[in-house]
């Protein structure tokens, strides 16, 4: 026994089931899921190295991302057709490989830096062992240096990195606004990574033994001139050569294949055009602008052509060039247009920025142009980046200039630099003031605009100091704690320095180094950086993870205890994107991409959403009812592999409607984020708030309607400290008892319809916290349940007995 640890090791867990009741089943499932991730054997396309390194990010394509993608209009920007101005080029996210040496950085597609590795390895297991070299097209990258790509590999002086990049294509190359490592949590939220093609099945269950001495390539050579030859592929498990012929040529083909190959062979037929027709289509596709690579992809489900395009915008010209073969073409885009995450402030055109005159002394009543220095207000790694064309509106007494900057998903948060642009005025300034439109907006940060919106006036120049980004916390009365007694509050999160004091970040935290806070910061009273010796500093940024306790008055958290905790970011319940059924259905319709499926599924009654399985082998559609009918409909219309699952929760339309309503009241309610989450673990409506109270949560419920409200999950940045509490859920969420008093759920009991806990609740009890507030008892837990119970005065027993 190790006396040093007081015998603690005698308590070492032997069976995790004690804390994870379903572990026995999960243990087997996880083993099988991991092993089905992929054994090699299939032929691999030149871009699979690109896809392979992207795969780790690919695992979590958020279902909400897919829902958002439905409304997207494809924008055509093949690389060969540079946009006339960078300002109008759409902002794109892409999963790419960056290569270069010295100061040179290029996007590279079509590379095979590891082509000598045996193709029997899964793509993701192929290390960049040999000197990487870009074998395909290269595009110059601006806006980034190798210092930004800390995760880059250097082999023999050649640099190499997989990255999730955001930026625009200009006439000269790719103007990046940021790059994320594939392992960066933020990269996971980018719906950008091309779908990995499924590993093909075998054509037969009982392979024959080839009697020849050749390899698969010899079979191709021997067969490709035969009429009726369709294609061949290696299936992974078991490792079998599959050769496909038109139905009436199978027998002739079998003889050739068996005579040529020296291993197990399946010979059969598949739907689709002949090898020659597909090969002709491939040649035609190669000529379409924007096409980066092509590959023949015969599978048991059909004879396909796979095309890697820069962007979805190439699809129309590709379809025109391919004619009938388009039906059998699978298109994989490298880039997708950036979709803006809802939840923080959204300006109509770009991200918020403020401006000051670059040199006030050069402005006069006669000026028809002014040079302004624009500074991005959000976090973007210290870069303001591209300024959208300024909007100028002229009135009798003032000229208002609005300088939005190009939208980015976010970045680290050192104070941003400023970018100078020249603004052309339609007429001389005359006797008018110049005004920063940002400071007139509803969202203006007080600290930026505290000295007003006027930047110049004929009588003298106004020039505010631009401080670092801060945000006034919400002061709406609904934010105020409802408790009158001395409620205590807690928050754990990351503190950032603003003007020498620590503030609590309740907005998105960017986990770059140094980290940054996007917008919302809560002022703290009662502590200084001296109380936080573990604070870290990098350049101008000072930050610290901390667990705070104190009292929150709706504006300021007065801290009386601060301790170090694990690094944090805004909490949210996590979706689980596993495959929703044991054996996905193989559709017999056309179209195999998720957009086709989403468009079809969207017409189903009670459609909830869809998600990719982590292995990318199937798409999963969730519906509220009639899963069988939905499966029948989709099987006839869709051509790919999919699962249909029936879940409880809001429909896609419910979530959309709820989100739209929340968007209009976000500021008043102190909302930080909102949206739907759909996955194997269920469908929820998720709302992040600065400080949830029974009243503000009730307002959210009222606003989003009953369907979304029934699955509401609330995450508060600041929470009232409660008592550890186990809520009995066995017969639904009905009532609770504490300290001899009985409380019943506000709004009546809820269950799953059969007297069990609603979906998403543990059974028989859920662990969380209880806050007592007058005649109310509020139960909350770690996944976001927020349930209010009302005192039943004088009650001494439960309303119903649950056994």
């Amino acid at each position, binding site marked *: 026994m*190790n006396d*040093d*640890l*007081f*015998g*603690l*090791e*005698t*308590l*070492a*867990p*032997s*069976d*995790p089931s*004690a*804390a*994870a*009741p*379903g*572990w026995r089943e*999960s*243990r087997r499932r*996880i*083993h099988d899921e*991991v*092993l089905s*991730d992929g*054994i090699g054997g299939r032929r691999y396309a030149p871009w699979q190295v690109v896809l392979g390194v992207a795969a780790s990010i690919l*695992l979590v394509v958020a279902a909400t991302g897919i829902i958002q993608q439905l409304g997207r209009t494809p924008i055509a920007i093949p690389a060969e057709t540079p946009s006339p101005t960078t300002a109008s080029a759409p902002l794109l996210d892409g999963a790419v490989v960056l290569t270069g040496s010295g100061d040179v950085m290029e996007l590279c597609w079509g590379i095979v830096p590891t082509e000598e590795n045996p193709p029997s390895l*899964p793509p*993701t*297991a192929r290390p960049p062992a040999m000197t990487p070299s870009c074998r395909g097209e290269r595009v110059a990258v601006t806006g980034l240096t190798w210092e930004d790509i800390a995760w880059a590999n250097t082999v023999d002086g050649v640099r190499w990195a997989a990255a999730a990049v955001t930026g625009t294509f200009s006439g000269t190359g790719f103007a990046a606004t940021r790059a994320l490592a594939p*392992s960066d*949590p933020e990269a*996971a939220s980018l719906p950008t990574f091309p779908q990995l093609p499924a590993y093909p099945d075998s054509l037969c269950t009982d392979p024959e033994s080839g009697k020849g001495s050749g390899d698969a390539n010899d079979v191709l050579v021997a067969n490709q001139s035969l009429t009726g030859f369709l294609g061949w592929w290696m299936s992974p498990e078991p490792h079998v050569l599959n050769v496909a012929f038109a139905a009436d040529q199978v027998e002739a083909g079998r003889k050739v294949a068996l005579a040529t190959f020296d291993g197990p062979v399946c010979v059969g037929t598949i739907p689709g055009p002949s090898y020659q027709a597909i090969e002709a289509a491939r040649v035609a596709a190669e000529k379409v602008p924007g096409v980066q690579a092509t590959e023949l992809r015969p599978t048991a489900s059909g004879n396909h052509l796979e095309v890697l395009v820069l962007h979805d915008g190439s699809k129309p010209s590709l379809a025109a060039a391919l004619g009938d073969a388009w039906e059998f073409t699978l298109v994989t885009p490298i880039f997708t247009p950036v979709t803006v995450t809802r939840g923080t402030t959204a300006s109509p055109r770009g991200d918020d920025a403020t401006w000051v005159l670059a040199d006030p002394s050069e402005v006069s009543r006669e000026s028809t142009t002014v040079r302004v220095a624009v500074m991005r207000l959000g976090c973007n790694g210290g870069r303001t980046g591209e300024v959208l064309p300024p909007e100028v509106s002229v009135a009798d007494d003032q000229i208002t200039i609005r300088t939005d900057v190009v939208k980015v998903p976010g970045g680290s948060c050192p104070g941003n630099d400023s970018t100078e642009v020249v603004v052309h005025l339609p007429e001389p300034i005359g006797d008018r003031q110049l005004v920063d439109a940002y400071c007139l907006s509803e969202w203006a940060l007080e600290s930026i605009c505290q000295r007003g919106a006027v930047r110049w006036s004929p009588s003298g120049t106004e020039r505010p100091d631009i401080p670092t980004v801060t945000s006034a916390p919400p002061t709406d009365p609904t934010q105020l704690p409802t408790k009158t007694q001395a409620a205590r509050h807690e928050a*754990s999160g990351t503190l950032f320095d603003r003007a020498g004091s620590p503030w609590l970040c309740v907005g998105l935290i960017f*986990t770059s180094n140094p980290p940054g806070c996007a917008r919302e910061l809560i002022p703290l009273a009662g502590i200084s950086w001296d109380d936080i010796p573990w604070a870290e500093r990098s350049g101008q940024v000072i930050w610290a993870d901390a667990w705070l306790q104190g009292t929150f008055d709706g504006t300021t958290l007065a801290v009386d205890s601060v*301790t*170090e*905790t*694990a*690094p*944090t*970011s*805004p*909490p*949210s*319940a*996590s979706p*689980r994107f596993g495959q929703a059924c044991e054996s996905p259905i193989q559709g017999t319709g056309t179209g195999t991409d998720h957009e086709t499926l989403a468009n079809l599924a969207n017409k189903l009654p009670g459609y909830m959403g869809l998600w990719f399985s982590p292995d990318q082998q199937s798409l999963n559609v969730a519906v509220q009812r009639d899963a069988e009918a939905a499966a029948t409909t989709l099987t006839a219309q869709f051509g790919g592999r999919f699962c249909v699952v029936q879940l409880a929760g809001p429909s896609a339309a419910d979530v959309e409607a709820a989100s739209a309503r929340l968007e209009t009241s976000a500021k008043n309610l102190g909302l930080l984020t909102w949206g739907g989450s759909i996955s194997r*673990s269920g469908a929820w409506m998720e709302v992040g708030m600065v400080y949830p109270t029974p009243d503000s949560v009730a307002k959210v419920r009222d606003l989003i309607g009953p369907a979304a409200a029934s699955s509401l999950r609330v*995450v508060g940045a600041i929470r009232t400290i409660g008592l*550890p509490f186990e809520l009995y859920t066995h017969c639904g969420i009905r009532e609770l008892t504490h300290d001899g008093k009985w409380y019943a759920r506000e709004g009546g009991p809820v269950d799953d319809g059969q007297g069990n806990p609603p979906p998403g609740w543990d059974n028989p009890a859920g*662990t*969380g*916290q209880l806050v007592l507030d007058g005649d109310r008892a509020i139960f909350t*837990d*770690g*996944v*976001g349940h927020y349930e209010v119970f009302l005192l039943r005065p004088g009650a001494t027993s439960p309303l119903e007995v649950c056994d």
Partner: protein
Amino acid sequence: MQPRTRFTALYEATVDRVMAYCLRHLAADHAEDAVHDTFLVAWRRLDSVPEPPLPWLLTTAHNIIRNRYRSQARALDLTARLAQVSRLAAEPADVAVGHRGDLLAALGALTDDEREAVLLIGWDGLSGSEAAAVLGISHAAFRVRLHRARRTMADALTDHPLRSAP
């Protein structure tokens, strides 16, 4: 040995301990996901998994929790984490019920970092340098942390002297 056979042997030998580790940081369903992701890395990098594999696996799990599940780890508050540890703890016949409770209470007196240090040694059976590698800190820093943790535990156990079995 075939890679699949090797993987299965590795999985069977270590998965419960990796799960127990993940359960110290995540609710059960997220812990399962983190275990899945950890072994996916192990499967894809099977040739780089060293012997003994556990420190490597726990380091991987630690990184995955930090990078991919940090918000979920954050969602598990202190009370829930301690409840999780207490559920996980074995109930060996030769340890008095009271002593088990005292030990768990002493664990609760530690900071998250200290508790993690203690459990990597006491439960996961890692050496000091292995545990330091999992946490991504120097061995010296780890020794300091462990020392602090022992002192706090000793104080906590002195406040509540060991009870004898009922």
